[in-house]
């Protein structure tokens, strides 16, 4: 039984034209020389031709007119890629990479001080930079931006609930 299924699977792939060159030649030979393969091939090719001959269902005669009426008031949206300015994206990426490289270099330089070669890198006083006042300001700005963005999103969803 399994052998029959295996034969049929190979024959289907052969008939559908989706097996590779070597298999195609092998199966062609089997069809001409092997009675079982030939019988199955004849059955399956008839079925394949029937399936391939199926026509799709047709919508109503007014279908094209209905579609064209609907698109007459529609606008073609700009291609998605045009929404993104690649220069800006590359700039942001470059900023992050530079910042990472700078932090890495600074960390390595501080971690490996050379006796004869005084490190030129000054030690940054980060506590002064990240004072509570400065942090509060950053957090406030982020909260305002987050709220503005949430408002934009919800407004858009309210106006276009389907999207």
């Amino acid at each position, binding site marked *: 039984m399994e052998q029959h*299924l295996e034969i*049929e*699977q190979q024959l*289907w*792939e052969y008939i*559908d034209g*989706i097996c590779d060159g070597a298999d195609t030649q092998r199966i062609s030979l089997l069809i001409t020389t092997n009675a079982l393969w030939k019988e199955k091939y*004849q*059955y399956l090719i*008839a*079925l394949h031709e*029937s*399936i*391939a*001959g*199926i*026509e*799709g*269902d*047709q*919508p*109503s005669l007014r*279908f*094209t007119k*209905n*579609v*064209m009426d*609907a*698109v*007459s008031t*529609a*606008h*073609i*949206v*700009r*291609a*998605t890629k*045009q929404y993104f300015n690649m220069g800006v994206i590359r700039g942001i990426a470059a900023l992050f990479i530079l910042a990472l490289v700078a932090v890495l270099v600074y960390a390595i330089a501080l971690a490996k001080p050379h006796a004869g070669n005084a490190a030129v890198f000054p030690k940054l006083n980060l506590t002064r930079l990240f004072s509570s006042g400065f942090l509060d300001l950053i957090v406030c700005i982020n909260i305002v931006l987050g709220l503005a963005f949430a408002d934009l999103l919800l407004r858009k969803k309210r106006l276009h609930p389907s999207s």
Partner: protein
Amino acid sequence: MPEQSDDLLAIQMTLQGQQPAYATLVNKYQSYVFTLALRYVNDREVAEELAQDVFVKAYRHLADFKGNSKFSTWLYTIVHTTCLSHIRKKKDDAILLEEEKMITISDNRFSQNPSERMEQKTQKQMLKNALNHLSAADAQLLTLFYLAEQSVDEIGIILGLTATNVKVRLFRATQKLREILKSRYGRELIG
């Protein structure tokens, strides 16, 4: 590929503002889109509405078609998402969707009263009816391969499968179709 270049020409003309050029695409693919939609919802009226939605969406987003694949492949993705959205909204009890699986509707949905059986004389009609008894996923696969003439690789891209998986599923779908044909119509159809 002259067919692909015809489609690209019609798309370019449409993008340049010649709306009537879009009608050629609609005429060419309406059967394809409608048939696929019918596989999802099994209701001609609803399928026609969905097919219409598909073409309107395709028109609106025509600028996003890059030409890397066949237009029919791109169109299929719109059919798929549109039909799934509809099904999820309507919770059609004929077809229940579970992620990527679609469950077959029961045989009773397709009326098999004696008068209809008498009418099912032609081979094509028998095959169409047999297709209707396949699971939506299998019917869809056969439609994509035989009706839309998508290659195995293209179907793989559409369905998110490897080419090998597509081949196996195609084989299994045709096996099931054969079993349906044998059980419902005997061997009169083939051979």
